[in-house]
């Protein structure tokens, strides 16, 4: 045991103690927000509401969605804070969300809330697909950096592309649904057939491809811009590429789970989640947030990404999710032999 880790443990222990001493209500919050941001989100929230303790349950988008659906008749979560809107729409079709007209709703962009009144969910920020390209390994292999989605099907990248599995990863699903929207259904599947020839692995999580590119385990990782910016800030030799056809995006959003025993605290959290202060907090990593005019540029974030965002049809994506995933699994899950 090292000194740092001992310090971590004692800090964690004292944090627990402090929370136990002051927290009146505990909220079980399901989330797909990156793990390293969770402590910051909870701490910023606790600045204004020290009496509510957040217990995070964090996993990738697909896993959290699966967990919520599995617990449909016996929900364990009070609030979902930071899950893909497409997933929340699926939950809505199962009647699992409690509609609530949060304070400050009128300040949100129209696309950042459920269109019903009161809305079943409110948006936080948008996360945008991007390609992480390892320049060092690319140079070693004599590759040129791709500029578009179409480029990724070039034979020179065979075995050098890693992308997330859309069944488990929200990022993977937004990639697939955006390709189907950009290229049209038929061309979209054709494109993925071509891409599949170059893919070395489909990962479970959406951030892993970029982390793999960052560590040179692969050259090209299809991931999201925020993750790329973080890895670059850590010193990884990567470029974050915005493909020229436009990029898919999804919204992180917040909702109350119907049947929660802590409704007041849940509403407090929902109100707070769309305050300007919360938006500034999201802005540390996300270039696009729910209230217009607040966002400042993010370090290492590629420019022009807002213009590249496609006009995403969330309802179409949610209602066709299971059919798209089935088709995807039929086409690409069969690849049982690893690429040599």
């Amino acid at each position: 045991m090292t000194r740092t880790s001992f310090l971590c443990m004692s800090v964690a222990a004292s944090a627990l103690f402090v929370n136990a001493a002051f927290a009146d209500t505990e909220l079980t919050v399901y989330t797909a927000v990156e793990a390293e941001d969770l402590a910051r989100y909870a701490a910023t929230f606790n600045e204004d509401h020290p009496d509510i303790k957040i217990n995070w349950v964090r996993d990738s988008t697909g896993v959290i969605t699966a967990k919520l659906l599995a617990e449909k008749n016996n929900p364990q979560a009070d609030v979902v804070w930071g899950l893909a809107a497409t997933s929340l729409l699926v939950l809505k079709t199962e009647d699992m969300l409690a509609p609530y007209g949060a304070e400050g709703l009128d300040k949100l962009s129209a696309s950042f809330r459920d269109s019903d009144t009161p809305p079943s969910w409110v948006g936080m920020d948008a996360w945008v697909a991007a390609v992480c390209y390892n320049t060092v390994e690319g140079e070693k292999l004599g590759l040129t950096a791709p500029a578009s989605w179409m480029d990724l099907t070039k034979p020179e990248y065979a075995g050098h592309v890693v992308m997330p599995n859309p069944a488990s990863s929200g990022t993977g699903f937004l990639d697939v649904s955006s390709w189907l929207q950009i290229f049209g259904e038929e061309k979209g599947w054709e494109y993925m057939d071509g891409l599949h020839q170059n893919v070395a692995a489909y990962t479970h999580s959406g951030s892993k491809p970029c982390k793999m590119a960052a560590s040179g385990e692969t050259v090209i990782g299809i991931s999201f811009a925020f993750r790329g910016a973080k890895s670059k800030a850590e010193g990884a030799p990567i470029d974050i590429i915005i493909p020229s056809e436009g990029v898919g995006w999804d919204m992180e959003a917040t909702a109350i789970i119907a049947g929660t025993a802590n409704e007041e605290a849940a509403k407090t959290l929902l109100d707070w989640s769309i305050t300007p202060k919360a938006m500034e907090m999201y802005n540390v990593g996300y270039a696009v947030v729910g209230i217009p005019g607040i966002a400042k540029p993010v370090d290492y974030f590629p420019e022009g990404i807002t213009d590249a965002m496609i006009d995403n049809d969330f309802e179409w994506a949610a209602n066709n999710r299971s059919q798209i995933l089935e088709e995807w699994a039929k086409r690409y899950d069969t690849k049982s032999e690893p690429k040599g």
Partner: protein
Amino acid sequence: MSDATLPAGRAVKLKLDRDGAIKRAFMAVIALYLIVALALPLYAMLSKSFVTYSFDLARYEFQVSDEAGNFGPPQTAAAINAELGVFDADDLRSSSDGRLAATAFFPDFSFRSPVKYRIRGTGPDAPYLVGLDLQNTTEWKEFDGNTFRRINLRPVKSVGVQNYSEYFSNPALFSSIQNSVFIAVISTVLTVVAAFGFAYSLNRSLMRFKGFFKLVAMMPILVPSLLPGIALIYLFGNQGMLKSLMMGHSIYGPIGIVIGSVFFTFPHALIIISTALSIADQRQYEAAESLRASRWRTFWTVTIPGARYGLISAAFVTFTLVITDFGLPKVIGGQYNVLAIDIYKQVIGQQNFEMGAVVSVVLLIPAVLAFIVDRQVQKKQVSLLSARSVPFQPKPNKTFEALCLMWCGVMAVFILGLILVCQFAALVQFWPYDLSLSLKNYDFNRTDGGGWDAYTNSIQLALMTAVFGTLIVFTGAYMVEKIDGFKTGRGMFQFLAMLPMAVPGMVLGLAYIFFFNDPANPLNAIYGTMTILVVSTVTHFYTVGHLTALTALKQIDAEFEPVASSLRQPFYRLFARVTVPVCLPAILDISIYLFVNAMTTVSAVVFLYSTHTTLASVAVLNMDDAGDIAPAAAMGMMIFYTNAGARLLHMLASRRILRRTQSWRGR
């Protein structure tokens, strides 16, 4: 004569004394535990695998207007479908998340036309969606064309074998069976050969450093099965230190799984084979020598037949471990699908719990088969060591010892190498671009998996499993061994106690979701708590503890009980004063076995952990999933050090306790 029957006497029945009644009560309690923690969840899973979803068209009724707005007669969707033949039975099968567009029933549908549509359910359960809003009503609802195109029917539950037929007709899923068996067979052959050489060197040679080799060989038990996978990535991955050794092959896939499987199953096979080889009769070898049999011939006609039951047993244990393991293929399997991964994908990735249950049932088959064969073989095992046997004494032989040393050396380098690589990777700043050392990867709170809390939770789980598990397992074994009569009850208890061995951890975990996360279950409250993790871990590792306890209990002469009862001593006094002290070594062994396994298990808990109960072993999995491989290695090494520490403590404690309580053995 035939008329002169005797009057019917009282039926002779063994009278149950108080001790017997209490013992039976105890046994009933533990049997109840096994039924609730094992039999019922498995039953729940089996029935879940027959739950299917399909669109029941008879449940919906439509009405269509003409352009002026006058509605025609209502017609059920089933009637329309019969008329138009839009969907056949196959098309109507679905999953729990399926959708069927209502417009499909109206070929001349156009959202621009002024035609209006009405829909209603004919019965209480007829779910459909308007856009994203769920409706379930028998009232007529009216929609214009533009809204009607956003209406989707939802599937309803029914029961049938459809999931199974779907599974076996899906080539992707079916190929997983082949892959699983392929991997398991290759790994088993390699492991058994490696372990046999190692055990042979330990038991049949005068090789030096035996103590050191024994210590190293047991190390893989102390780490989760994911850890060798992580080490292999650092060694042979695309940025691996020894990548050139792969000669262009990828470590991601069967090669990686097989190498990792040999690593983590090696000690299990070694223990079994070593026990088999440790018993040998010198006289047989002397006979072979006097018959001028060559050493090669002696090996095949004396050594191998003597150890054959051990070899078969080791092979089946290894086979079961590999085919049911999920951590290793998850980390290093790449796109190579195996059964255990399919369960994970179906459940976690695609929310398809029914299909997960089907794969679980399929995975149960090879595991149960291996288990049955192993039990049959065990029954045939006869004692090699008779009273007249002379223990085998190896003779000095320089060349042979050098060979043994080499074999063990290679295995030791393999095992130590993988562990050291993990430790090194955990300390590197940013692999492979910045190789300076740092402790940044130990800052678990910055990554997925639950941070340092996960680590403390794991220790709590391991301690609780060790304490309660030992209590339950030993009491159960005592009652079943020392009870008088009641043969059927004991037989059934034995069966329940042996069953966990054949049930893969993930299957048990999934079965627990179905059983405990049902609001109608009065035990529902333990879902998501530490209790369910303890219950699942104790149950998953029940059998080995039970067998250990039985072996120890059989050593105690059966005369003790009658003597105690004739002295009018209640059985619990005998239990506390004689049985427990005599069995203390076994009790300590059971507790450390449960502790170590609770620290390393992933499969038994991966579906069951919650916010408050994240675990270190699951954290390794989740960190690797998110691409944080170095922190995953760091957490894996924390598990290793904790287990090594626990083993050390256990060794010291047993030495002290044994000196105090077991001195009678010396006499």
